[in-house]
């Protein structure tokens, strides 16, 4: 394809991405290298309906002057990345020196927010992704074998976990897994244990989050595989059937190779989305036992009265970096495919 034609085709897409994603990423990165100016704090007397108190407040005029000189704040280099909220290098060194066994050391590391979040995020990513990929493929094969009349309703029903907004969907599921809810109570009966609580035990919380993740994402891999199955060339299948290939052999040698590009695509998206797992943690209120990288960003931005843009920016950059590493094997494959395609 000629450069000029290519440019014309890609221009609209590229320009929105450039404006609304690329520029913000750069600005977020710059922001993550700065911290706020020192606030000028003054002692003040506050009175409200319930009495007066001596507190401190910010001298906004003095602080505004500082801000005018350097609107980005104070340059901090990569210190935000290495502080206790992120990689905590100093603290880890200290923990290493003061721990007498490796287990104590690991426990101490687990106490730092980023490492705690990473441990759940990675486990979640590597458990949920293969399950979704595999089960989604099986469902797609199954639905493909259904009589035509049943296909439509089945597709719709399969999409439900993805359609119903997590905001309310998980509110309902959260109640269902409660000790008094229908799933929770059934499990208690099943295991004959009245104190069984999916919400109070760390292990069960992790399992619950992952099961939810699989349930919620299955429709995605299902529908992509299903659409892919529609493009499997009939002639090849028929030829294979005439050659006496069994159904399993046909799936193995014709269908799967044909769907490989789609599988790679799904893996890419799933790895990325699972690494950014966030909603289930909030809706299942699992923060006590499981936090994720995206949850940290949310915490920096929204939960404190003062949004910590630098911390959120640094965590976002770490997210991008980790996603890059996660995707590396897939990317290398894509690179090879790309070169092969162009040779042939």
């Amino acid at each position, binding site marked *: 394809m000629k450069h000029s034609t290519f440019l014309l085709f890609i221009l609209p897409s590229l320009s929105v991405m450039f404006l609304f994603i690329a520029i913000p990423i750069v600005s977020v990165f710059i922001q993550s290298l700065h911290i706020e100016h020192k606030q000028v704090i003054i002692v003040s007397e506050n009175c409200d309906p319930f009495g007066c108190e001596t507190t401190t407040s910010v001298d906004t005029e003095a602080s505004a002057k500082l801000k005018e000189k350097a609107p980005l704040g104070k340059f901090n280099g990569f210190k935000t990345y290495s502080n206790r*909220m992120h990689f905590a290098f100093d603290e880890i060194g200290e923990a290493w020196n003061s721990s007498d066994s490796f287990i104590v050391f690991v426990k101490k590391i687990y106490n730092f927010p980023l490492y705690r979040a990473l441990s759940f995020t990675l486990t979640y990513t590597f458990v949920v992704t293969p399950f979704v990929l595999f089960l989604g493929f099986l469902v797609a094969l199954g639905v493909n074998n259904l009589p035509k009349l049943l296909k439509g309703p089945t597709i719709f029903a399969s999409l439900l976990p993805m359609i119903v907004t997590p905001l309310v969907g998980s509110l309902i599921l959260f109640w269902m897994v409660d000790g008094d809810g229908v799933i929770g109570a059934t499990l208690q009966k099943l295991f004959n244990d009245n104190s069984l609580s999916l919400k109070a035990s760390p292990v069960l919380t992790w399992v619950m989050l992952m099961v939810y993740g699989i349930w919620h994402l299955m429709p995605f891999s299902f529908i992509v595989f299903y659409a892919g199955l529609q493009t499997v060339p009939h002639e090849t299948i028929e030829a294979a059937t005439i050659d006496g290939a069994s159904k399993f052999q046909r799936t193995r040698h014709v269908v799967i190779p044909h769907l490989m590009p789609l599988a790679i695509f799904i893996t890419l998206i799933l790895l990325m989305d699972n690494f950014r797992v966030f909603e289930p943690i909030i809706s299942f209120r699992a923060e006590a036992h499981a936090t994720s990288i995206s949850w940290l960003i949310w915490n920096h931005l929204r*939960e404190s009265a003062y949004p910590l843009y630098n911390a959120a920016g640094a965590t976002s950059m770490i997210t991008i970096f980790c996603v890059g590493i996660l995707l590396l094997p897939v990317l290398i494959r894509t690179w090879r495919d790309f070169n092969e395609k162009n040779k042939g």
Partner: protein
Amino acid sequence: MFLKKLILGGLTALFFSSSLFAADCGPNGQSIRILASDFPAIHAIANSAESNCAGSASEFTRNHTTEARQIMNAAQTPDPAEYTSVIVANSTLVQLMNDGLVRPLNDLVEKYGGNLKSNQLITIDGKIMAIAFMANSQHMYYRTDILDKAGVDGMPATYDEIISAAEKIRSAGIMEHPLVMNLKVGWNVGEVFNTIYLAHGGEFFKQGSAEASINNAKGIAALETMKALVEYAHPDHLTQASDDTQGLWEAGQAAIGFMWGSRGGVILDNEGSSAEVTSNTVLSAAPTVTGGSIPGATLWWDGITIATNVSDSEAEATFAALVSGMTSEMVAANNDDAIWLIDGFKPGPAAAGVSATAQGGAKSYPMFAQMGLLHNALGAELVDFLKGAESAEQALSDVEAVYETAAKDAGYL
């Protein structure tokens, strides 16, 4: 239903204000734009202001959104600001003041504030920054029938009495987990610590600086009290917030509660519960420590502010309109929607807990600029202690370390 009440309230306010006296709406032809959270009491004030003064304004818009707190600083920074008024609470006023986005109201109060009571004025170093209109706090809820059955005399007034009452209920075999508290990880659990720490006489920061000072004997005592209480709470307590505690209470599964006053009305009404629960539920003051005098609660208010980055006449019109909404007629029409600070409020049983707590000398939620950061650190780091995975000292030193990092980033340290 809420909205019917609201519309009715708005209409009554309209009727009273337009027929009995014409509201003073300040300069004509101004644009009034309000940003607020989305709940009935705020709707009542805004409705009343709108029906009084929308006619004389060139524009009267209201944005009621759950995300008000997230967007307000960005919305108010440009000149002219997106909104002429933001309706705030203790904690959010500080957030706007940090960036200098609210203006002092002294001259406006002088001109239009005839019907305001002096305790509605929120002053910071003598400058009036907001006008409060409603109050709230967490306090105790008791089931008197269950306390009687378990042989508890009167209503517990201290943490120790609460713990022994809970033990009596448990050992009498009435309930395994008689206590409900809003202990959901994050803001809620941090808030519960705040209340108990204040009851122990604790201070959050070193005098005159932004350095945290919670890792001390009082902090540890507060955590030990919290742990002792949690023993009697539902096993899922770390996931429970107001909706869940209210649900448990209404289902008759709890006998002692530490919940928000604003939930009193809906707990005591006849929906979602049984007569046995509602007729025996009593709201009372937040507890003190044994021998102490400060109730373990933080008092909250909601109030109006006026933006810095708008023209003086817009500010004047907005202020006049909102203040014209704070009438005893508006309160009378919406009496049960909030614990009003405005004249004409008739406190019912649902308001008993908050008034008792305020009269007992409870403190307001601290108005430090950096309080949100400490609260957030508490919310995230106390969990390990409550789960039993960490000592109290370790938890508090974690809180201080997390706070210190955040406060450095935000420029307070």
